[in-house]
């Protein structure tokens, strides 16, 4: 049987490798859907690409303000390193928020496609993540300039960065997949996600560093995103090696959540057209 043949037995969904292969077959669709999401966002908009920068900028602004208020209280000046740390970590956080938000709605906002035409449904959340990634890469130019301006130099530890960034993207993708699927079955997931994303910034070391919590630090780092943001801060701003144990913990979490989300997605896929 060729690659395009299929043989379907009742109730058996595709396995993760099978769906990976299928997504590869449909890579042009993934590209087009991503492109559509980006295009639609910037079409008929007055702000254009400024939009991509606005969100991280607001987060940085809020973070700096909060930290300034703290440092005024404790009579300590906000150091340049802390300042760049906030700027650096705001970007992946902004990406995470936008990707999860768009990802959660990605399927319910396309009911026509879900009920009428077959293709691997994973492309919906994945395209949402990729479109957010596009925004983030535009904003990253600004972040880079900013970091250089703040005098953040380079070191050998920067080599960790790509791996950390990939882990952040994959973890986000896993969440987006799971939540898009959950939102299709239960529409209140969307509101829960909104609440969690709004307050999540207080539970994630974006404005502050994990070590400021002292002995409670491990609890914070249990959130894989926290460990990854911390690792990013250490390698880029502080020129230190990441905490290896926490980084590998985050990597494990990412892989497991990806497999878990994908399995749930594949199992549930059979019901999408009926439930949506």
């Amino acid at each position, binding site marked *: 049987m060729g690659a395009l043949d*299929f043989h379907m037995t*009742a109730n058996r969904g595709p396995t993760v490798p099978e769906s990976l292969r299928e997504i590869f077959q449909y890579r042009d669709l993934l590209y087009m859907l991503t492109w559509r999401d980006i295009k639609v966002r910037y079409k008929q908009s007055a702000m254009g690409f400024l939009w991509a920068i606005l969100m991280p900028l607001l987060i940085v602004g809020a973070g700096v303000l909060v930290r300034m208020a703290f440092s005024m209280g404790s009579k300590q000046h906000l150091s340049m390193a802390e300042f760049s740390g906030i700027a650096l970590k705001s970007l992946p956080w902004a990406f995470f928020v936008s990707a999860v938000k768009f990802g959660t709605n990605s399927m319910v906002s396309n009911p026509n496609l879900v009920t009428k*035409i077959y293709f691997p449904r994973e492309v919906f959340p994945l395209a949402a993540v990729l479109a957010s990634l596009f925004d983030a890469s535009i904003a990253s130019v600004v972040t880079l300039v900013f970091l250089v301006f703040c005098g953040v130099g380079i070191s050998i530890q920067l080599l960790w960065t790509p791996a950390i960034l990939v882990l952040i993207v994959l973890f986000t993708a896993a969440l987006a997949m799971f939540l898009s699927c959950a939102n299709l079955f239960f529409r209140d997931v969307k509101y829960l996600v909104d609440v969690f994303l709004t307050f999540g910034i207080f539970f994630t070391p974006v404005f502050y560093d994990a070590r400021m919590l002292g002995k409670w630090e491990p609890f914070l780092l249990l959130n894989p995103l926290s460990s990854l943001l911390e690792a990013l801060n250490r390698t880029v701003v502080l020129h230190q090696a990441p905490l290896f144990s926490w980084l590998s913990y985050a990597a494990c979490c990412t892989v497991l959540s990806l497999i878990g989300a994908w399995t749930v997605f594949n199992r549930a896929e059979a019901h999408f057209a009926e439930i949506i």
Partner: protein
Amino acid sequence: MSEIALEFDGVWKKFKKGEIHDSLRDLIPALTRGAFSNNHTGKLEDREFWALQEVSFQVRKGEAFGIVGANGAGKSTALKLLSRILRANRGRITARGRLSGLIEVGAGFHQDLTGRENVYLNGCILGMKRREIGLKFDEIVNFAGIGDFIDTPVKRYSSGMYARLGFAVAAHVDPEILLVDEVLSVGDMRFQEKCFERMRRVVGQGTTVIFVSHNLQAVQMLCSRAVLLRSGRVAMIGPTAEVVKEYVCDPAESSVQKFPTRIGDVSLCDGGGRAKANFRPGEKAELRFVVRPSAPLDECLLGLIVRRATDGLAVCDYNLPLSVAGPFTEVEAGCVPLSVGLHMNLLRGAYVVSLHVFNRATSRHIAYADRVANFFVEETLSWEGMTHLQPNLRNGHA
């Protein structure tokens, strides 16, 4: 025997009636029962019903295969199972080759994008590669007849343009198996002809086509074989003409009379009075029936409608004054036998007869008998058409 392109093997599919839980409150029970268990193979649970039961058929490579049946018989469910949008509860479905559907044209269009952008987007949704779309782009735009509007956002298109562009993209996917669901009704008449031509060409090129339509005429012209579904079960599989015949004669299809006057014992006979259902063009026939009137028949009109069964086109709709056949004196007897002599000047096809009685005095229908008789005309004179003009070819001018 050529290769099997597509196979349904004992397929069952059930749906649930009524509201489906969609709030988190029901998450735990739903997850344990639903997506995370394999419990949905078994019997029907509360409020569930079978949309398809034990459906099996095979379609050979290059064959055009029709699926016919009344509303709710399971045609679209079968198609959605085939296109893998739905998954069966039991049974196996096998397909060999690239499969694509002309199911909902323009489903993937985004309002804010231009026609050009949507062609690419929709093409990818239907399983084409970007390079492939690029190669066929001009052909698609030509087929749709969109012209200069291709760079206008589709939200500014007329609904006809929208549908035409959608069909044009879908028609250029060139799959090995094509699923078609009731899309030939898109656009104006000329565009419909164009679509139909395209379909015929696709069939001629050796593509396997699965065709679902209420237009039996189209099914008959495209498909060599068909399956008739009746409330989710296979009622018949065979040559299209026979399946259509079976479907047209479905007793469940004729409506119940709720009028004061009754029309009954309807039968079609040949000139000699023997019951007959198959006629040759030009043959004599007699329609016999019995009326149990509720008003004096002399004041009434008899409505006689003959429709082509495959598409519902009215061949004729006569209003015959019953006074011609009168006088009717035995109203009290309650039983008036009547007959209408006919010349079957029709071409090949299935036809259904409806009768009604209209009271001129009260301007009301007092009897209505829909689809009370059907007959077939068989001939090998024509390619298509309906009226038998009795052509007489001669040498020289008479």
